[in-house]
């Protein structure tokens, strides 16, 4: 099982702060995972691909082509807004 986490506005778009999924073995990269989510929820898929969205795989910042298979935790983050 992989935990998919949503932060900031993406939490609102997903309607949940996280979901647990059994990712198909065919999903190799972060971009694959996003496309897979988008196929089931196009609106959320678009939000996850919006400019400024950052992704972490197992708590390390990752780019679209980073491997996602075997990940325990994939986080999609709206633009950060600290302080």
């Amino acid at each position, binding site marked *: 099982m992989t935990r998919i986490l949503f*932060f*900031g506005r993406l939490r609102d778009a997903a309607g949940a702060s996280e979901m647990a999924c059994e990712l198909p073995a065919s999903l190799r990269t972060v971009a694959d995972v996003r496309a897979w989510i988008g196929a089931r929820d196009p609106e959320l898929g678009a939000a996850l691909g919006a400019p400024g969205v950052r992704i972490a795989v197992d*708590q390390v910042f990752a780019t679209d082509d980073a491997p996602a298979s075997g990940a325990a935790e994939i986080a999609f983050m709206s633009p*950060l*807004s*600290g*302080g």
Partner: protein
Amino acid sequence: MTRVVLSAAAFSADAELSRFARGRTAATGALASFVGYCRATSDHGAVEEIVLDHYPGFTEKEIERLSRAVAERRELIDLLVIHRIGAVPAGEPIVLVAALSSHRAAAFAAVSEMMDYLKTDAPFWKREQGPDGARWIDPTAADYARREEHAK
């Protein structure tokens, strides 16, 4: 040396700063610090509280990474970062950043840089709660511009 604390409870900026200052050495010539408070109004109207979401584990790690980078680049004697998480009522401190250094320029630069990084690079998601509901807050163009200044 750096210390990073995420606090779900209110903290006393005075007491923390006082404790931090006691850690100074004979070589310490400068203590620069910054406290950011939750204001009762924003550009969007009245603010009852700010709610800061974070990513447990990841947020601490990222701020520690940023802190170490600043402390090394500025050759600090010590650096302290305390940041609230969760709900922060108007009037309370949200963030404290303090730097001990031999010279003042390094201490100023470190605190200013660290604040700019916290605004744009720390994994926090902030919303303002007012009488009309909650609003997500994004970093401003000015925030990004300041961050870019430091990257040069």
